[in-house]
């Protein structure tokens, strides 16, 4: 009993931020055992998330004031259902990527990879636990810089150019965001989200802040037409880095936007028009991303464009949250998680195929199904979730969005989603079709270790199983203590 109470009272949220930072430091200090340290840290993050989850289930949403200083002066950590889900996703995907990276990176690169990766994890965790907009800015910056560093890891020309583009885009976005924060702080005297929510009123400053923050976060999330930096960055990075970029980093800025929109801005601005605008951009993203993905001849670019398309789906929650808030909310949570699992599985299996064949040309994938069955299975299962075919998490998300769209009579959204699904099927099966057939020129295969194949497969299986676990996920999502008029739980 005492142990149980102790475990419940333990500040898991703080641990979530502290542990990866400590891990980063130790990786930097002890390069010899860097892989072990990295794995231990990842695993401890998973444990902490479990602890936090238990805590939330027992006690409801969680607030922790750091150092005892409460807002408006101090920093507060806040965890509720949505943040728990994001943290859990981060922990799981991060753990899988860590296992993969132990086998992927040679020691020279590993020394550079692990510290930065730990920093990135710390930034992510902190971001999901933040409760005020300035803290969000800090973590966002940290996240962006770590991500850029990881992108440029290999040091090749391509990597540099992609990382450079990413850096400039992310800085521009952060700048805009900071301006928004400044505007809000200036007008309302606080950066804490709940305090702001209580005080916010419609005024030109708020509108400007919304414009800046929305555009900045849209740029960071690579919403059409601001997606230009994503394909080169994600495709020129090493495979595990691409995985974490597409699966986790993008979701962070989207998470921020989700929070801010529903808590701060939606009640006080003309939300309908903006929602429609965001929805239209989302539709364009779906169509454009899918069409571009279909045209690619290189695997990693195909997957990167697929990410652009999937981000479009996420933005469809805004027009659909008007009257059926909870359905759209559940849908977006589901889409985020299943996309994270599926996309990371895809990038990891692409990494395997590249190690195997030395190239990632789709047409020359030489009977991968026979020679790398686990990888092919991982790619196929992940593809099933991306396409939105049952049974998978992607299907559940798509179903919920479709239900919301049909009930609200927004048939253009239905049409776009269905067409997006068909196009996704087209490009996924293009790859799968080539994995069955021999290439024109056979080549020698390098072997790929099991440590690299199994994480991909397990992530993909996770994406599929998510389709059958609706009830537990939903119960996690509903933990919250702020309920807004539109019926959307936060």
């Amino acid at each position, binding site marked *: 009993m005492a142990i149980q109470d102790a475990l419940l009272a333990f500040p898991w949220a703080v641990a979530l931020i502290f542990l990866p930072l400590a891990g980063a430091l130790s990786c930097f200090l002890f390069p010899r055992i860097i892989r072990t340290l990295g794995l231990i840290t990842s695993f401890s993050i998973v444990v902490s998330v479990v602890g936090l989850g238990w805590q939330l289930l027992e006690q409801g949403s969680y607030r922790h004031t750091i150092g005892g200083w409460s807002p408006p002066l101090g920093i507060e950590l806040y965890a509720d259902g949505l943040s728990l889900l994001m943290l859990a996703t981060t922990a799981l995907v991060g753990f899988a990527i860590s296992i993969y990276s132990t086998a992927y990176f040679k020691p020279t690169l590993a020394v550079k990879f692990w510290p930065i990766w730990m920093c990135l994890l710390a930034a992510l965790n902190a971001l999901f636990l933040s409760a005020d907009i300035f803290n969000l800015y800090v973590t966002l910056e940290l996240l962006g810089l770590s991500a850029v560093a990881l992108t440029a890891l290999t040091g090749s020309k391509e990597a540099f150019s992609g990382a450079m583009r990413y850096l400039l885009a992310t800085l521009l976005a952060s700048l805009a965001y900071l301006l928004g924060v400044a505007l809000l702080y200036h007008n309302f005297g606080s950066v804490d989200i709940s305090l702001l929510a209580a005080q916010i009123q419609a005024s030109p400053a708020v509108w400007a802040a919304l414009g800046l923050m*929305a555009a900045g976060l849209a*740029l960071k999330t690579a919403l059409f037409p*601001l997606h230009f930096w994503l394909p080169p960055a994600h495709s020129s990075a090493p495979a595990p880095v691409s995985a974490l970029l597409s699966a986790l980093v993008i979701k962070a800025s989207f998470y921020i936007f989700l929070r801010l929109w529903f808590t701060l801005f939606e009640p006080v601005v*003309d939300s309908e028009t903006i929602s429609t605008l965001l929805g239209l951009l989302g539709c364009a993203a779906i169509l454009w991303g899918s069409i571009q993905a279909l045209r690619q*001849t290189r695997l990693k670019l195909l997957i990167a464009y697929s990410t652009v398309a999937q981000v479009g789906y996420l933005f469809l929650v805004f027009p659909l949250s008007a009257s059926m808030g909870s359905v759209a909310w559940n849908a977006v949570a589901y889409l985020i998680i299943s996309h994270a699992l599926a996309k990371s599985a895809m990038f990891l299996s692409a990494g395997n195929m590249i190690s195997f064949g030395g190239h990632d040309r789709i047409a020359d994938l030489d009977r991968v199904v026979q020679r790398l069955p686990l990888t092919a299975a991982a790619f196929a299962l992940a593809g099933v979730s991306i396409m939105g075919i049952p049974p998978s998490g992607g299907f559940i998300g798509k179903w919920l969005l479709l239900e919301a769209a049909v009930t609200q009579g927004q048939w253009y959204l239905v049409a776009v989603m269905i067409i997006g699904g068909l196009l996704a099927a087209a490009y996924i099966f293009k790859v799968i079709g080539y994995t069955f057939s021999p290439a024109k020129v056979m080549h020698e295969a390098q072997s790929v270790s099991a440590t690299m194949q199994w994480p991909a497969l397990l992530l993909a299986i996770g994406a599929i199983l998510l389709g059958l676990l609706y009830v537990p996920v939903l119960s996690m999502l509903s933990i919250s203590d702020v309920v807004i008029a539109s019926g959307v739980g936060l």
Partner: protein
Amino acid sequence: MSSSMYIEFISVTLLIAVIWPLLLSIPPLHRRLPWPRHLAIIPAAVLAVIPIDVSFNIPWLLYGTGFAIDGNIRWILGAFVVIWFVAATISLPTKEKSSPDYATTLFLLTFTGSLGVLLTADLVGFFSFSTLMGYGFYGLLIQDGNKALLKIGRHYLYVLIVADIALFEALLLVAFTTENFQYEMVRQTMSEISSSPIYLYMVLIGFVLKAAIWPFYFWLTAAFNSGSRSIALLLIAGPITMSLLGLLRWMPARDDIYILGFVMQFIGAAAILHSVLKILTSGMFKQGTRRFNTAWLVITFTGLFSLALGAALQDQNLWQQFSYLIYPAISIFSLLVSLLILSSFKTHNETVLIDNTPVLIKNIFHRLKEWLCSTQQLASAIKLTSLTLWIKLGSFIMKQYQHVSSDHKIRAFVPDWKINITLFLILVLAITWLAV
């Protein structure tokens, strides 16, 4: 006591008579027995001889098939058994033991079919067995590769298929009206004014075609022409007689369709006249042309039959009075014709194919074939509207909208920074403005 035992014995013999040849038709079985064809006929012979009437039902077979034998049927059965026996003797199986003896298989299958037709007591059983008999006979026609018989076989097949379809529709109409398929019940039910006259037409079409009643006799004369005695014999004891029997059993007892009666009588009269003319002009006493006579004799008989039928269609009382005469008539007639066939058909080495299918019918088939071929081409053209083409069109359109190539040079990949920053600023302004 003993009479019931006899009845059981006869019932069992009846079943054996039908099943035994069916079993024997399997090649591994009949290869091991001597004289398999004759052996198969023995139970039926027994039935023909013993004068006990039975009728029973097997409820779990098909729709509750029944079998029955009575005095009338025994008349026909007697002639039937004799003719088949003779046919079995004169058509000896192939000498080589190595290849499977399909001739015997087909012989026995046809025999089973004909016997079954004779012995069943309801319409569904009749139809099933007559299908077996029909296709078996087709096999018999073409099994030795004789070119003349091949052509006849094809014509017979067309006739068979069309007739079977007509009879199936008739059967459907019966099923629509009643649940009981026994002959008498069917004749009663289908003779009520309320029931569909289409049944009558279908029955007539079916059996007229099968029995080669004038003017659809061409395949019959060609078959007799071919010089094969066994074929001619089996025709008599098989399709022709059984089809006449079918007319007897399936014909509804209604006499309100006067015009049909007239038509049938006309057909009958025309048949008789035509055949008499043919027989006279062919010269009965010339050796080589006796063959014509035999087929025309059959046509005469069927003409007589249709004459009688036509009369009955006008006045059912005639039918009631004289129908009992028909069975012995059929029986005696078939025996007579068989005798004629046997005596007139000496062994012939050459077969003269005289194709008297009218040109019109040949043309029709040819035209039908051409029309089907053109439909095929139309179908290939229709492929254009299939989904595949729409998808090809879609991807073609998509290709037109690509300015940004994204394969090899990542640097040249992205449009200018200026454009992107402009887009960013536009987005900021748009959202800000729309927030109002």
